Every structure is written in C-alpha cells, then in structure tokens.
C-alpha cells in the first residue's frame, strides 16, 4: 500500500515538474530554434518558432562578425574581471573590520553599506555621471570599473560579514596572544577560511556585472568601448528584421553567464541564499 502510494507520487511529480519545465523553457527553445534557421525558413511559415528544418550555424558567425561581438565580448571581460576582483578584495577588508572589531560607529557603517545596496540606482545616476565627467573618467573602462567596485562594496561587505561572523573568534585568540599583527590574522587565518564565501560571491558578482546595462549606458559613449548588453541593443537596432542573427547574438550575450552558472551552480545558489536569508 505504502509502496503504491510512493510510486503514484513519483508519477505525479514527474508529470507535473516536466510540464512546468517545458513551459518554463519555451522562451529558450524559441530563441535556440530561431538562431539556427535561415531567414527564408522563418518567413515561409506562420509557425516561425517551430523546429528548424535544417541547421544554419552561419547566423552565429554573422552575429559575431557584423555585430562586432568580439569587441563587445573583450570589453565586457575587461570591465567585469577587475570589477569583481576589486570589489571582492576591498570587501574582505571592510567585512573583516566589521566582523571582528568592536568600535564606535561600526553599526552605522554597516547600515550605510546595506542601505546603499538597496536604493534605486536613479539616486546615483546624475551625480556619478557628473563626477565622472569632472575628473575625466567618463567614457573610459576604468571609470566604469571604479563605479562597479564602489557600488558592489555595499552588498559584498554585507555578504562577507554574514559569513565571517560564523568564524569562531577562538580560532585566532591564541595567535593574538602570541602577538600576531592584525594584518596577519586577516591574511593567514580569516581570508583562507572565507574563500568558499568569496567564491560564491564572486560568481554572483560576475553574472551581475556581466549583465549590467544601465551603468554602461550612462558611463560609456564610444562604440569601441561598449559592453555586450549595449552591443546587443545596438545590433538589434541595426538589424531589426534579421531575427535569426539577433537570436544568435542574444545567445552569444547570454553564453558566458550561462556557462559560469552551469559550472558553479552550487556557489551561485549558495551565494543567493546567504546574501538574502541569513541577513
């Protein structure tokens, strides 16, 4: 009796979850199919999003070359990697200070970091734009990178502090008595212990900064500096009716975060939950 119930439950589970997944993946499936078709095939059928009759890989080549995807790709890496590393490094410092020291205004600093990460971005647009122009980093990668680092410090500090709080202080009490300097405790004990959290955070930050659209739009102007989100929008604007190439370009844009997610899924999900629920 119990076994039968179990089997019927499993049956129910597979039917329901597979139907949900198919429904959920339709947007992906349509994009993938469209990216593989020739324009003739798309135009020929009312059901232009159906399974492709013959596979056309040229669309990807087309998007990559005429859409200048290679440049946008390179630019996005140039912006994303230093931004992630910079934000991670600086936040380990601030999180260390806020986790293991008792000092005046420590709570105020923490509140500042948390609330800054939640405010509407529009509160920053005009002053950041003006400041970047004033000091001559408007329309440069470094300007965008510095902004990303500064802005992400809020969330990263909050995230890493939540993690560091779980490290028992007893672990380095003896080192302290032995006269170890604070910087040694940071680099030799706390930092190595925090590496899993730093990794999880790094994956999250990577996808966020890779996917950024608004700040690249505000802080970059020259076409040869633009990141991939802007590039995709440009491409779309120029080749409105070339659906197959646009679909291919969309997939190229999404490829890096998708691959990063698939490889580091565990870290990604851990990052999302530590960042939200523990807080």
């Amino acid at each position, binding site marked *: 009796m119990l076994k039968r119930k179990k089997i019927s439950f499993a049956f129910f589970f597979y039917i329901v979850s597979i139907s949900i997944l198919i429904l959920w993946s339709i947007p992906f499936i349509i994009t993938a199919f469209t990216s593989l078709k020739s324009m003739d095939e798309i135009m020929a059928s009312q059901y232009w999003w159906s399974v492709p009759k013959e596979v056309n890989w040229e669309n990807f080549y087309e998007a990559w070359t005429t859409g200048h995807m290679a440049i946008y790709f390179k630019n996005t890496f140039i912006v994303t990697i230093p931004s992630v590393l910079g934000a991670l490094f600086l936040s380990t410092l601030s999180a260390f200070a806020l986790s293991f020291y008792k000092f005046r205004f420590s709570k105020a*600093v923490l509140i500042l970091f948390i609330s*800054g990460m939640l405010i*509407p971005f529009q509160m920053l647009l*005009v*002053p950041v734009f003006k400041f970047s122009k004033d000091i001559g980093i408007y329309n440069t990668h470094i300007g965008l990178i510095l902004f990303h680092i500064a802005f992400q410090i809020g969330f990263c500090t909050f995230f890493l502090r939540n993690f560091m709080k779980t490290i028992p202080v007893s672990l380095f009490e003896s080192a*302290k008595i032995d006269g170890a300097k604070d910087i040694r405790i940071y680099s030799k004990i706390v930092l190595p212990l925090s590496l899993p959290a730093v990794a999880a955070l790094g994956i999250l930050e990577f996808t966020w900064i890779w996917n950024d659209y608004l700040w690249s739009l505000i802080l970059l102007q020259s076409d040869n500096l633009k990141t991939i989100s802007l590039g995709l929008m440009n491409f779309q604007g120029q080749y409105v009716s070339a659906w197959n190439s646009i679909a291919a370009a969309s997939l190229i844009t999404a490829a890096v975060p998708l691959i990063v997610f698939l490889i580091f899924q565990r870290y990604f999900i851990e990052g999302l939950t530590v960042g939200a629920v523990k807080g």
Partner: protein
Amino acid sequence: MFMSKKRWWVPWVFLSVPLAMYAIWVIWPIIQTFAFSFTEWDGMTSSTFIGFENYKNLFNDPIFWTALKNNFRWLILFVAIPIPVGLLVAMLFDVKLPGGKIFKTIMYLSMTLSFVVIAQIWSWIYDPKNGALAVTLKAFGFANLDELIQGAFDFLIFVIIPVIIAVIVVKIIDKSVRLTGKKALFAYISLMALFIILAHVLKIFWDPQVETSRFAKNGFPWLSDPNMVTYSLIMSAIWRQIPYVMVLYLAGLKGVPPALVEASIVDGANWWQRFYNVILPMLKPATIVAITISVIDSLRAFDIVYAMTRGGPFNTSSVLANFMYIETFNNYRMGYGSSIAVIQFFITFGFIIVYLGNALKKEG
C-alpha cells in the same frame, strides 16, 4: 572581538579604502541628488536654485502619474505572483527523486540572463500576429485580446467562483457531519460539478460582458496596446523572478526539521494542515525576505522597460526609473530627473527599513 582603546584606529585602517570609494560613488551622490532636485540644470551650463519648482511640475506632469501607477502595478504583481508560485514550485522541487537536480538547474537558467536578452526573447513571444503566445491562444479559439479577456472573465465567474462556493459548502457540512477520506473527496467533486453546471445554466439568463472596446480587436497587441503593455512587461520580468523566489524558499525548506513534519503526520494532520500549520510558519523568515526583495526589485525595474518599449506607446508603460532616465539623459533636465529619483527613494525607503530591521535583528 578585538578592542583596545589605544589601537582604536585599526578597524578604520581596514575600512579606509572601501569606505572612501563607497562614500565617493554612493553616499555623496545620494546627498547630491537631493540637492540637485531643487535646481534647474541642463548638465552643461551652471545650475540655478528653484526651490520646490521641480516637485510642483512633477505633480502636474501626467507622465509622472502614469509612471507611478505603473510602478504600483509592478509592485503588486511582483508580490502577488512570484511569491505563491515560487513557494509552490519550491515545494514541488524539494522532493528528492532522481532527476530533481537537473530540473532545478533548468528552472534557474532564466535567472542568469540579462534583462536586455530577456527583452529580446520575449518580444518574439509577444509578436502580435505570429508570436508563440498569440498562436497558442488562437489554437484555443481566442481570435483577439478582447475575446481572451472575456474568456478569462467568464472563467472566473462561471468556474472559479462556483468551485470556491463548493469548497465553502463542503466545509460547512463537514462541521456538522464528519466527512472522511473517500466521502470528503466525493463531496468535493460532486458539489463542484453541480455548482459549475448551475452557473452555466445561470449563464443562459445572465451573461455579463466586460467593457473591452478599449482593447484592440486586431490580434494580440501585447506591447502596443496601452492597456496591456505594462502587464506584458511584468510577465516577462516575473519569468526571471520566480526562480529567485524559489531559491529563497528552497533554502527555507532546508530549515524545516523533517521530524516535525513526521510528527504532524502521526498526529493525523492532512496535507493542507501540514502545509498551513507546520511548514508555512517555519518559512516566515524566507517569506519576509522574498517579499521585501521583490518589492525593491519591482521599484528598480528599468532595463526591461527601457529595452522593450522605452516606456511606450505614448509613455503608457513608463515607470519612474525609465521616466527619470529619459528626462535626465534624453531631455537634459538633470534637476527634474533628480526630483523623480528622490520620489523613488522615498517610496523605496520604507521597504529598506523593513529589510534593515530584518537583517540586523539577529544582532540584538
């Protein structure tokens, strides 16, 4: 915890660089935006102080009210749909059966996409004539948006409401005559069928028509109909939000001790009691976080609106974030744009306080 009166400056050394950068690019700009909102400034010539003029103009600007109304639509639907659906999906995928892990991975994929990509993908689904959504609905016999809305309305009046009445009636009968197992199931099914049939008999005499003339009668103009466009945008954003809520709930479900659930089964609780009285209270912290984050995300919505419609047609899908961007960077009204940002800030403020209170609660 280190503390020493002599060495009070040590934590500040660690904080110096991150805090300085944060102050330059985040805190100081926030203060500046407040100041800018009282000025008139085109971004190039010098600015002039004009007091509350920007706010006065804002409150007389019809686009501001449209954007505000749309922001509230975003807010309400971003809580009303992703939270319950995310919870349901999380409950489903929490089952440990082979293949479950891959299922979850597929579910999560939409979370990794940028809104620009989502906008592109969904604009094909929303294609008014041959988009996947339009063609599917046509296959179900709806010729245009008008008929779809009438159909949904009929479904609500003549199916959903009778079912709800049936459930209430069964509950009332259950109070006097204990219904158990098969009897209860029979009562539910037969009464639901009965009420649905009765409702359809009623439909012969009373068939209300929804005022739909405002919707276009031509196909499914998801993104070009002023009354529909905001909902279409919200739906595509929700596609990305639901997996996120699901992640939060799955983490919350890990914290529910299986012993507690088993104990409730031994005590004879049915699945609904088990869910409502045992699991749901344990998920309260996850729910609070999911709601506050969804609200804050909904108020920040920009990318998808800008990439899909730029707030059009005729600003009808505009939200404050998008309105602010266009006023500031397309119309060069920096002061006016700042005042929009300030309004956005105050709307978000209450929710930020809730989040902060929740985040700092455990510190005591």
